[in-house]
């Protein structure tokens, strides 16, 4: 039971820290990366990187929003990836 309480405490602290951090502006790392780079780094974590030609601009808007939720992307990352895909398709 003690072990469980410790686990719960650790997760709660991390949760609080993340929520507080989430209110801050975007990280310098994201700001310094281009959409193509973020596309290459994030998509391939689970599946092959999608060809920009797969969808139209409108379809990419929906697909990237879906992936923003699914892959826990930040808003800045999602916007940059969508811009890249729409430019390159």
């Amino acid at each position, binding site marked *: 039971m003690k072990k469980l309480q410790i686990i719960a405490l650790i997760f709660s602290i991390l949760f609080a820290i993340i*929520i507080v951090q*989430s*209110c801050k502006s975007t990280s*310098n790392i994201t700001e310094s990366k281009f959409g193509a780079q973020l596309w290459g780094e994030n998509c391939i974590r689970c599946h092959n990187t999608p060809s920009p030609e797969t969808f139209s601009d*409108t379809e990419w808007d929906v*697909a990237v929003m*879906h992936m923003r*939720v699914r892959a*826990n992307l930040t808003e800045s990352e999602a916007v940059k990836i969508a811009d890249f895909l729409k430019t390159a398709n």
Partner: protein
Amino acid sequence: MAFGQLYKITKEISNQVNIHKMKNLIILILSFFLILLMNQNVKAQDIQSTDEIQKLKQEIELLSKQNNSYKPGKSQFLLRGYAHSGLQTNNNGFSFVGGSFNPLLIYKQSDRLLFETELEMELVGSAVELGIEYANISYLLSKNITIRAGKMLVPFGIFVPNLHPAWINKFPTAPLGAGHEGILPTNDIGVEIRGGSYLGNLKVNYSFFAVNGGQLNDGMEEPEEAGIIHHGIFPDNNNGKTIGSRIGIFPFSNSSMELGFSAMYGKTGARESDVEDIKALHYAFDISYVKTLSSMSSVLDLKAQYTGVNVSDANYPEHDDPDELYTFDNKSKTWFAQLSLRPALVENPIVRNLEFAIRYSDLLTPEGAEWHVNQSQTDVGINYWFDWRTVVKFSYRIRSGFEGGHSEEPSHGGVEEDGGNSFFIHWAIGF
């Protein structure tokens, strides 16, 4: 004489002057007409140009109207999904096996609101079984926080939420413990807060959720499954909700590695039963590492997950004599490690579409239970990618160890299992 000559000379000069004047006059008149003519011509051209401009303006207006009629609204709909099928051969024979068709419907209501559902149509015998993998609504509360509610893939570990779709999974089967009847949580109904953020320059993602939770089989009707936690059953069998979380940390700035920690805890026993207070703790550690190896012109992909399940002690009826009770230490664990290598950077178009993969998985369930399993499985495979989401998989599965009464169904979508070694050829397409 002198006057006469003078008169002649004077007249001649006068004539010449008049002729010169006439000439000038004629030139002047001609120039006037010429200018008049040119002016008329310019005017005619101006009129013609104005007409053309008007015509162009009308055409632009028409095209603009037509274009506006095709302009997408804020609400947009997208159909995606995947399908797969193949063949399997083992000691029992050789058969084409039905896969599944999973349409994924995504509806973007606005820039903040998203609804998505994945259906699963699977061939079972001669019938088609229809299921809902998930159906939930997401609200993007801020740049880094999303609230989700509905039926969802439980954000626990990496295989079920991220890797199980057939066009993503490197193998036709799932690792031990991760199938529909495995010990890993699959899908559930509840609410969730999730997102990605940065702790300084350290990227993290998080998920905190409350769901109905798994349900404990008390063994009254199925004594062979006494003590198993069943997932994805509705409605809830008690008022206690299972709460859980997964936190992923990216130690490297290029996001190549993700370390994940998951835990969920809650009541699993049915209300007003002898096992009402029985609770279960699920915990998992996972790692994902994807790296381009320039020296090998390849992409390396490593995935691994360790999962433990601890269920508090309970008494279950004996199989042969339900009046007699027995108990056991209800702890299970399973893990898998998977490595794949794709020479994606070589010039040869055939070689760069190949992918070599190997996976080892292990499952251990409680010794005192009728569903005790102590099994390991090794999968080796070669995949050929036609494009980024269409693949044909050739794989061989080797199983060893003790397989208990609890039937494992590692495949996500219809490959019949007999627990033995099998060879698979499977195609999968994502769309």
